């Protein structure tokens, strides 16, 4: 059994390290630094930390202004408040002006749990992905979140990273390489490819185990970067395995599944199934109950994989 850690923790700890190394790192929060783990930075570097109150639009705009003075600004809140409430600011201030603002949000997906639909952001990947200049990352575990945090500080320009409230299994090792836009094949296979992001990577691994019992050899890809998407990895998956299942804790429209489908239909059209939330809002419940309710489990992914394989042209 893997160790379980929320991906927000990896972000919070790495941010402190970055703060020590680079005095141009500033952090802004909409009064949720406890929940996003940005408070680890606040405790160490209070003079470079700004809690601007419950005012996400102001958080984003102020971060943009600070970046114009040469700072690398991390703007943090819950995914739903930041990406939905402050969308116009992310679009105009950050993306159109192409500024060095890193938007890092926790509390995405149904695994937010008991807080229910209003807090469970299921749209962020889609609406961040359509913004020019924005890069979109959804790490699978805390180590990956930490590496992504470090890399986004080094690469100028806008980034969006989704982190989790729920503990995710630690799948990777400290020494594993991480590169934006480069998918990780974490299990090779030839019958079908399961492409996941965030928690759905570990659920895809569970699916691969289930499929193995039925003699199906599934490839599992950790697609931590939704934009720019690793098209090569998708094309290879289509050509070499002939069927693809995407899995995400996100609405079925516009997220990882859509991004992969865009590549698949324009290059090597193969059967695809998408595991995602079916155009409905979340609910209150325990994370595991909600994964089951919204059919986002390894089991669901395995069922979808069999469907996709069945649709392959003989």
């Amino acid at each position, binding site marked *: 059994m893997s160790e379980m850690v929320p991906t927000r923790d990896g972000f919070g700890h790495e941010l402190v390290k970055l703060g020590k190394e680079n005095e141009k790192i500033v952090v802004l929060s909409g009064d949720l630094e406890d929940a996003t783990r940005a408070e680890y930075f606040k405790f160490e570097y209070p003079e470079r930390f700004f809690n601007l109150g419950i*005012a996400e639009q102001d958080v984003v*705009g*102020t971060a943009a*202004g600070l970046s*114009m003075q040469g*700072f690398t600004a991390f703007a943090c809140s819950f995914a739903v408040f930041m990406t939905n409430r402050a969308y*116009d600011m992310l679009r105009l201030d950050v993306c159109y*002006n192409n500024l060095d603002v890193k938007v890092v949000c926790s509390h995405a997906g149904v695994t937010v749990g008991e807080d229910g639909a209003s807090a469970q952001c299921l749209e962020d990947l889609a609406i961040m992905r359509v913004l020019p200049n924005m890069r979109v990352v959804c790490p699978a575990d805390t180590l990956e979140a930490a590496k992504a945090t470090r890399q986004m500080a080094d690469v100028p320009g806008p980034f969006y990273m989704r982190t989790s409230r729920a503990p995710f299994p630690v799948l990777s090792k400290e020494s594993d390489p991480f590169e934006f836009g480069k998918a990780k094949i974490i299990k090779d296979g030839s019958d079908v490819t399961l492409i996941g992001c965030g928690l759905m990577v570990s659920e895809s691994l569970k699916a691969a185990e289930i499929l193995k019992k039925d003699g199906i050899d599934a490839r599992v890809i950790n697609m931590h970067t939704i934009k720019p998407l690793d098209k090569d990895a998708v094309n290879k998956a289509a050509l070499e395995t002939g069927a693809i299942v995407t899995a995400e804790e996100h609405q079925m429209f516009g997220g990882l599944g859509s991004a992969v489908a865009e590549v698949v239909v324009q290059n090597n059209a193969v059967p695809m199934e998408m595991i995602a939330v079916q155009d409905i809002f979340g609910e209150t419940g325990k994370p595991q109950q909600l994964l089951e309710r919204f059919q986002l489990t390894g089991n669901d992914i395995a069922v979808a994989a069999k469907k996709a394989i069945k649709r392959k042209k003989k």
Partner: protein
Amino acid sequence: MVTKNVDVNSLKQLARQFRKEVLETINLAGSGHPGGSLSAVEIFISLYYYKMKHDPKRPDWEDRDRLIVSKGHCSPITYVTLANAGYFPKEELKKFRKLDSILQGHVSKKTPGVEFNTGSLGHGLSVANGLALGAKMLKKSTNIYCLLGDGEIQEGSIWEAAMTASHHKIDNVCAIVDYNKVQENGPTNDIKNIEPLLSKWNSFGWHVIEANGHDFHELMGALDAFDSMKDKPTVIIAHTIKGKGVSFMEGQHKWHGKAPKDDQLKEALADLHKKIEA
């Protein structure tokens, strides 16, 4: 009041010329926003020809003062000012709103001298706060100015930023409200009353100065009063007239975002001329 030695008569002359060029620029483009450009002429001149520390030869000079044009539709007066100040050749004004032009429809960084892309309202003040906080952290003595429309401050985000500026004692920010009393579909205070404006800003913790936004002495005096204010952000409520200088445009919301046709331009320029004579 006014500390720097400036010839107000020459600034007045410049204002007439800018109004003419704003109208010609919009006429040639066939679209654009005359009303809120003509109301802000004296504000722009007071900033670029009197108050702001800037160098057209070095638009990226680190220690320059900054202006965030939050009312991004007043691109014509922004561009006319920057061209005349020497940021780019005036010839470019003829390409306003044309494909591949450095002069985009709304204020954009494609234009040398522009700091920030705008066009969606309610954005500038937060950005100005960020710039000002950054300047303080870098121990720079630069000032950040932010031009707001009166209709624009109906946006809630402006008040989020207003709270931030006073809470964090951002005294190197100076907001200027171009209070021309008219927005796209009618009189501002009929559509959604922003009054009492002075006490509103006051209660948000700002140092408030009222000025006649077409009077250079008053504007320059207000800008100087901002300098000496410590621990509080400053807002200048500049009382202006939408479409100022062209009789048939003044106070008319229909001229918020409409280009004068050739005959209307002729009439407008004659009117401007007549006002100079008078």
